């Protein structure tokens, strides 16, 4: 197992497929099996035997106990269908101290997850959004599809405003059946609207995982002295003295993180905080281990 996969090093590799493979190999090497499950051959119910039913589905043990014929019924057999929603708004272009932008980190994470899912035959799709859905690639299986998805991921350039709620809504609707929605975002958006769409997605039977992509500078307010701060999305400015407002900022930001953590836990949404300085495999492994222990949220 590779000890750590520095995002700064990985971001310098232009071949996203290679990055994904290296990351997944390093991550999965420590796990005995994938925590992703499809919906194949799942028992549904018994019904009384009718003439013409296939005898192989007759439950003979039950017949022995009850002296009646019952036929076993199963749900439709399918693999996991996943759709990644990647935030490509301006705020995702912010780089941490290591120079890795949040968009880059999200891209690397997305590539690794795509590779992982494709490896077990699951379908994976992509929604890139800012104020609107910028690009949509439907969920499919196969390596050729993955390659085109990785190409799309590698072309993600941050810019514009955010509208995560509409992107989530769109992703929920685009998944034809129950599936996994993986959101990569810094969640600087209308919280109520995003919250509403999260709940809706869960109600629709989708499994939702949120990667909250952040830089340490955002958490601690890594500015110094008196600065005129410009919002990357709205281009609004604010004159402030970092040392004077840092404590208040950290409190507010802590509350913001706590709100999302609580909210996701309440809806059964898998919430992962992804710091751009954290090794990529570590973030991925944390996510996968939690899924293996807890199982799918549904």
């Amino acid at each position, binding site marked *: 197992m590779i000890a750590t996969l520095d995002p700064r090093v990985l971001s310098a590799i232009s071949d996203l497929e290679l990055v994904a493979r290296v990351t997944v190999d390093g991550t999965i090497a420590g796990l005995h099996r994938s925590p992703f499950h499809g919906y194949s051959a799942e028992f549904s119910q018994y019904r009384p035997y009718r003439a013409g039913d296939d005898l192989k589905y007759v439950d003979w043990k039950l017949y022995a106990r009850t002296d009646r014929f019952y036929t076993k019924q199963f749900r439709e057999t399918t693999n996991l269908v996943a759709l990644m929603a990647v935030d490509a708004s*301006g*705020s*995702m272009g*912010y780089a941490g101290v290591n120079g890795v932008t*949040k968009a880059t980190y999200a891209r690397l994470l997305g590539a690794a997850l795509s590779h992982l899912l494709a490896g077990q035959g699951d379908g994976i799709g992509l929604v890139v959004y800012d104020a609107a859905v910028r690009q949509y690639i439907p969920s499919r299986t196969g390596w050729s599809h993955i390659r085109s998805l990785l190409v799309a991921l590698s072309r993600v350039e941050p810019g514009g405003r955010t509208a995560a709620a509409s992107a989530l809504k769109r992703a929920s609707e685009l998944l034809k059946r129950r599936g996994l929605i993986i959101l990569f975002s*810094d969640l*600087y958006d209308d919280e109520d609207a995003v919250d509403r769409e999260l709940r809706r997605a869960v109600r629709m039977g989708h499994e939702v995982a949120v990667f909250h992509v952040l830089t340490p*500078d*955002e958490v601690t*307010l*890594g*500015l*110094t*002295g*008196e*600065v*005129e*701060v*410009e*919002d*990357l*999305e*709205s281009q*609004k*400015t*604010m*004159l*402030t*003295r970092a040392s*004077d*407002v840092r404590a*208040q*900022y950290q409190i*507010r*930001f802590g509350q*913001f993180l706590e709100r999302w953590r609580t909210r996701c836990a309440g809806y059964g949404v898998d919430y992962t905080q992804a710091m751009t300085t954290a090794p990529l495999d570590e973030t991925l492994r944390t996510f996968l281990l939690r899924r293996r222990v807890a199982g799918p949220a549904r």
Partner: protein
Amino acid sequence: MSLDWLNPAALAGLALIAGPVLVHLLRRQRAPRVTFPTLQFLVPTRAAAARLRRPSDLLLLCLRAAIVSAAAIAAAQPVFVTTWRRAAWEQRLARVLVIDQSESIATAVSRARDAAAAERGGSTQVSEIHTTNLADGLKQAAVTLRRADAGRAEILVISDFQLGSLTASDVRALPAEIGLRFTTVDTPRTGATFQGWRSFHAGSAPAVEQQITLDGSRTRIALIAAKPSGRAVTFLAPADQAEDVAALKRVVAAAGAPEIPVDRGLTMIFPGAVLPAAEPPRVLWMVNALAIASADDRLRTVASAHRGALARSPGPPWVPLALNESGQPLVLVAAANKDLVAYVSAAPSDLVAAAALRSLLSAIVPPPNWREREVERLSASQLAEWTRAAKPSAARWTPQPPGDARWLWGLALLLLLIEGFARRAYPTAREEQAHAA
């Protein structure tokens, strides 16, 4: 050690320090702009007042102010007055040679020139003053030495030192620190007997001439008969006053007056005579004569005592020479036909006519230079008594180029290099913040 300046006006350049200070203050007014993902957790602060009080990049500001200061001070050309510099200054000697050029030394000009040449070596600065009046020469030398760039000053007088050419008061008038030396040029004591005035004569009276003999401290003047060679004075008066005019000439001749030379002329006009076309006196000898005659106390006294009725006086270009007791012009002069013309508003028999004629004759004839006829010399002991050495004087100190500006220019250059290094090594606060952001 003290400090002097060669160009103190350049210290005004220190005001340029305000330049970098203002630049740093104004630059500080705008906080660096940094991008951030969101403003929703930030709160604005008000710190503009604090910004104005504290300039940015104090180290760079200090360096830049120091560069401007060093350049301004260097331009002012400071001179540090050290002991050795002061000693070197006091070693410098400024010397003025006062060389007598009077008539008495005319026969010894080459010897005076040799004496002057011998004194030129060894001193820092030598200048020469050629004069016919040693007293004036000393004053002129003192003025010259006041501006001299040397710690000591000396006057060397080269002359035959006729008696009276210098007096103790002339020497005392010199500043005490100025040294004084005398070099005597011996001249033959000729001309002990020489000709003085040729006297004005009237009618059939014989013309006489003064013969002056200088014999040591004694002077003898003898009047000897001489042929009249000068030019006669013209009198314009009514015919009935001819006797009075003749009497006037006799009186003046008897009183003693010089005969005017052939190249100058005098016309006396009395009331009743026709006035010639006159013009203001412009020729030099006329102007000089007018100046001398107007200062003649005897003429002024006689004129101011005059009480008789005055004939009508002519107006310009006639110039009043003497006024009566009521301030009316009694004697007026003008120029006509290259002669000096005097109009007397009184009869020829009046005393003022005689006083005016005598005064004008004396004024027209150039006064002989009696001093140059002196055969006695100032004694060697007297000159030795007046001789004194030059003394260094703090009051004479003036800073001399080159000063110490080169060190300041070097310092400014060094500071400039340090500033350049500091600018690269330590980014400005703005850059720092932008980088941190």
